């Protein structure tokens, strides 16, 4: 018996109804993603990147085919099971940060742990560790409205990593950031991947992100057009040195 891949999809299809027409967002995607990968779904707008990411993240269900994440078939999960999978194993980083505006930085990061029911002392330690990771411990009491775009995205990353998920899904996570902040964020993510073994899957068409990817899966019209793994990791040209 062979070990099943950490994440895999088989002939995955997703169609949407637009009036009288059916739009195929995914059209038979078959993929294997191993634990600890730093992979990216790239391709033009409408190629199905976000749809695939959403299905892997159990935010959406496939129309046909199968997507299995950590042994759980997404298409068979109930709402509660999907919520539990997201809560315990998956962290999300969104293009628009999606921080909760009435909470402080600390509370935004703590939120994920509240759902896990951790005791206060443990929550506090984990939140401060996560904020240390993204170098925002000194902004713990700030509100999201007081942060720059780069800082907001780092808070979003802290919120994603604080529960030490197995997978982080980042959807256009640098699209709203300038080059310097983008590299900062990506370096932080790469460090997390390296040191904690967290699996990262990006959906992006940002060249800056592509420089960091160790595996690039190109989607075109809902299908896998190419799947390239870079030997030695994503050390593409133009990548600046580590910076905070």
């Amino acid at each position, binding site marked *: 018996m062979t070990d099943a891949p950490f994440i895999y999809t088989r002939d995955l299809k997703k169609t949407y109804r637009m009036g009288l027409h059916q739009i195929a967002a995914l059209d038979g995607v078959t993929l294997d993603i191993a634990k600890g990968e730093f992979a990216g779904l790239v391709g033009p707008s409408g190629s199905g990147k976000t749809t695939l990411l959403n299905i892997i*993240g159990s*935010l959406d269900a496939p129309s046909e085919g199968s997507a299995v994440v950590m042994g759980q078939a997404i298409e068979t999960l109930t709402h509660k099971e999907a919520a539990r999978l997201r809560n315990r194993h998956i962290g999300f980083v969104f293009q628009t940060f*999606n921080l909760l505006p009435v909470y402080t930085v600390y509370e935004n990061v703590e939120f994920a742990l*509240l759902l896990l029911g951790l005791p206060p002392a443990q929550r506090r330690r984990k939140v401060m560790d996560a904020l240390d990771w993204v170098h925002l411990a000194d902004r713990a009491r700030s509100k999201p409205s007081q942060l720059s775009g780069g800082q907001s995205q780092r808070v979003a990353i802290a*919120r994603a990593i604080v529960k030490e998920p197995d997978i982080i899904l980042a959807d256009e996570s640098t699209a709203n950031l300038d080059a310097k902040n983008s590299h900062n964020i990506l370096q932080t993510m790469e460090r997390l991947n390296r040191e904690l073994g967290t699996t990262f899957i990006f959906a992006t068409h940002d060249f800056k992100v592509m420089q960091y990817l160790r595996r690039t899966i190109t989607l075109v019209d809902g299908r896998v057009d190419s799947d390239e793994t870079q030997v030695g990791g994503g050390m593409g040209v133009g990548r600046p040195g580590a910076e905070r």
Partner: protein
Amino acid sequence: MIIPKLALKNLLGAGLRTWLNVFVLSLSFVLIIFSQGLIRGMDQQAEEAMIASEVAGGHVQHPAYDPFDPLTLADAHGPVPPALESLAAAGKAAPVLVVQGTIYPQGRLIAVQVKGIDPGQSILNIPTSFLSAGSSDDEVPALIGQRMAMLSGLKAGDRVTLQWRDARGTFDARDAVVVQVMNTSVQSIDQGQVWVPLARLREMTGLPGEATFVVLAKVAAPPDQAAAGGWVFRDQDDFLADLRAMVETKSFSGSILYAIFLALAMLAIFDTQVLAIFHRRREMGTLMALGFTRGKVIGLFTFEGMLNGVLAALVAAVYGIPLLSWMARTGWALPAETDSYGFPIGERIFPAYGVGLVAGTTLLVLLVTTFVAFLPTRKIARLKPTDALRGRMT
């Protein structure tokens, strides 16, 4: 416990928007309690005034007496039974003799009921002591109420011809001098009534020792019917039945007011919830991405709506308790015209707020608030996390 904490945080975090809602809702709380308290106060006052001025502990009536049939009045009198006489002697009862009469103020003719009562009685809250005022044998001291005064154009000190029929059916007349115009909220002791000293009326009518009914003090136990010589006891409930029927009718209109205030409050909550669900779709998506189920999101938004009600109750308590207490102490002055509405209320209404009213209103508003807060959240049950994250409604 996470939902209550988050809901409170969200509400307090929303700042002014929350406090505006809470204030509007708290106004509803206060207005509902005030309006209901006012109606209750009016009912209580009316009952208290009737009991104090007319009913006391109940009446023991001559068997022929029918207060609703003036034609029976000529025969509705008899010697006061000994059991009642002894109560009267002990100050626990006040006999009243009622005869038909006519007054002629300024040449006009007004039919009246002439009521004889002991000027020294203290059972009814009627200023009968004025009837002790010195008057000659040719003049009968008379006490009338303000409505009677208005109807007849009489005022204190005026003289008016009073005509009646004595025991033998013979007409007789004498001048009556108005010794006092009493200010009473109870119409039935005022409208068409002329109060005179009992002894004088007995002498004028040739009915010594007789009465039409005997008013019992609240502390006096009514004698049994045999001891009362066949006279009939009517208790407070008998007298208050009509008033209570009026209160029932009035309670219905009070309920409409209640419903309007409640609807206004609910509209505020419903509007807030609909707006919140529209504006906070992305937040809902984020919550789902973080592991919230739709049920929890619905729970969170519903709880926020309910917390609006709880905060409103607290805010209402802060300014409502002093305000309503002050109103209960000082009362609410009524315009003079209100007196003629047929309801025995005084010049001021003192609202009465019972624990039941306050607790019931609070509970009802909270329940309805929660329900109204829940209604729009049903939309969330159909919300796809992916749409919510994009800020779209499914």
